């Protein structure tokens, strides 16, 4: 056996070794990519939103806009207070409602309701909205984000679970129970 042949056999063995490592790497790597993308994959499968209750209708007097809070449907035990989300509920006439996300449509800061002037004002860049959520002035390009709502057993229910952003004002897929009771 020539030295050259001996070298090439070792090179071949090294290449086979590298190939086996490569196969193992891919076999491990692909599921790990899935692990990294799990926040997106989960949304595509089940969705993050579900119907949840904001409480009795009596909490929301006719003609007024009140702050309501709910526990996000998708939470872990270590989320602490961050799992509690606020929203604004406007009772228009006792029958029809509007439920606005707390997040300004500009950059997501928490808007505040001023009942005396019937305006929502944002503390960050001064976005302002009228009582029906439509844009009044400032940098936002649109009105406030709104949740779907329905009334069940005298309770106000909204479909929520995901932070609304300018790129995705409402969640695409709904999961969870079809009811909030």
């Amino acid at each position, binding site marked *: 056996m020539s030295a050259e042949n001996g070298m090439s056999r070792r090179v071949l063995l090294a290449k086979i070794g590298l190939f086996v490592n490569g196969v193992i790497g891919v076999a491990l790597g692909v599921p790990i990519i899935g692990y990294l993308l799990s926040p997106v994959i989960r949304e595509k499968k089940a969705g993050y939103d579900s119907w949840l209750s904001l409480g009795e209708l009596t909490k929301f007097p006719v003609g007024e806009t009140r702050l309501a809070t709910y526990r996000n449907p998708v939470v872990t035990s270590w989320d602490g*207070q961050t799992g509690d*989300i606020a929203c604004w509920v406007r009772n228009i006439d006792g029958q029809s409602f509007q439920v606005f996300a707390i997040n300004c449509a500009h950059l997501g*800061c928490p808007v505040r309701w001023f009942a005396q002037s019937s305006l929502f004002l944002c503390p*960050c860049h001064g976005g302002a909205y009228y009582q029906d959520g439509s844009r009044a002035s400032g940098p936002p390009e649109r009105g406030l984000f709104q949740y779907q709502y329905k009334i069940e057993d005298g309770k106000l229910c909204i479909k929520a679970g995901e*932070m609304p952003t300018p*790129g995705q004002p409402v969640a695409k897929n709904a999961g969870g129970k079809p009811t909030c009771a």
Partner: protein
Amino acid sequence: MRLIEQVGAWFEMRLGLGKPIRESATHPVPRNTASWFYVFGSAALTVFILQIVTGILLALIYVPSAGEAWNSLQTLNHTIALGWFIRALHGWGSSFMVAIVLIHMVQVFLFGAYKFPRELTWIVGVFLLLVTLGMAFTGQVLRFDQDAYWGLGIGASITSRIPVIGPWAVKLMLGGPIIAGATLSRFFALHVFVVPGLLIAFVGVHLLMVLKLGINEWPMPGRVVHRATYLEEYHELTHKDGVAFVPYAVWKDIVFSAFILLAIAFCSVYFGPFGPGGQPDPTIIQTAPRPDFFFLWLYALLSFLPPSAETPILLIAPAIGIVVLLALPFVAGEGEKSWRRRPIAVLTILLVAVALGTLTHLGGGAPWSPVMDAWSSLPIPSQYLVGRSALERRGALVFQVKQCHNCHSLGEQGGKRGPALDRVALRLNEDQLIRQVIQGGGNMPAYGKNLSPAETTALVAFLKTLHPVQQAPAHDASRAVALGAGEATPRP
């Protein structure tokens, strides 16, 4: 002494590091680079080491859990001995590091250090700037308070505007549908493992190239860089008129680093640690989120961009900026190094500095943000109420109750979102005032639906009194004619 020498020799025989370290330390550098202008890179490295040490100390106590992080920061501040000081050192260290990295960058840019053969050193330096800013942002998130929470919301809102993949990118960034436990965990992993790993690797490559290619010589007007001749000229410079880096140049680095460490320690003792602010509870909405110092300019920019241009500028401008920085050594790899012969370079630095400085200054005051409690906490100055009629005072009350004060200032107090109203009666006559209040416009909401006719009348009566005593208020000269009173009376 002999024992130390023997132990040293024992290690040297096995490690063999002595010679390369001695060679690196005493390598010749051009004589005039032993200058106070050449100390910023080493100072940045010193502060980085301080950040590593204080960061590890903080990690001994800090809990990267959305439910507990804020409490663990309080424990650090108030219960653990010197915990507040370690937090302060880390916080002030980050501000100093961003500042020194920027100064270092300006210095090497003005000294033409990015030209042949140090193009790659510059490019790695650009990445170092980016990861330093990445450390600053992720670190601000770990101080998990209200500002961190809503800052993440701003980050998510910007990310969501990326075409097509925006919503997915938001979920990847937050680790789920909302800002919560998974979000803090991944920012902890980024701030403690991923970004520092990159930073250490980039610093290593950056330093290696400084040693291999030699420090940039002091630029002389007229000494032009040519690829063909530069290496030879530099070799001549270092060997004919060079000095050993240790100790001729290094003492200035050491003294300046010590000065910076002292300054950080002084700020830490005098000003204390940064926050944490209010609890990261999204149901507490009485908050006005502000970013840390080094992102105030961006905060300001976001309020001034016209809505339609905001998304494209936010997404494209940073990419263009980075490409320009990366392309710089390839576009201008040869030629004059001296700032005396590079007026455009100097003007660029001045322009960027003035722009960033102005935006940062504005970001500190945030005149575009309404003062959310002005209507209930800031009174109308008494000189605007003395001697006024009942109707006018009633209007002043409407001004407060309808939150006008949140956006409009009187006597320097109140919001600056809209124009100050101390002299508004000089600018607008009665009809114009009514129209502006009812219909809004010019970035003001319309109040037509929220004011009764009586309230509007009172409010406008009050606004009509807002003018200096010596100057007559604006009035409609044609009004008298239109109302059939004959010729208009001349203004007094």
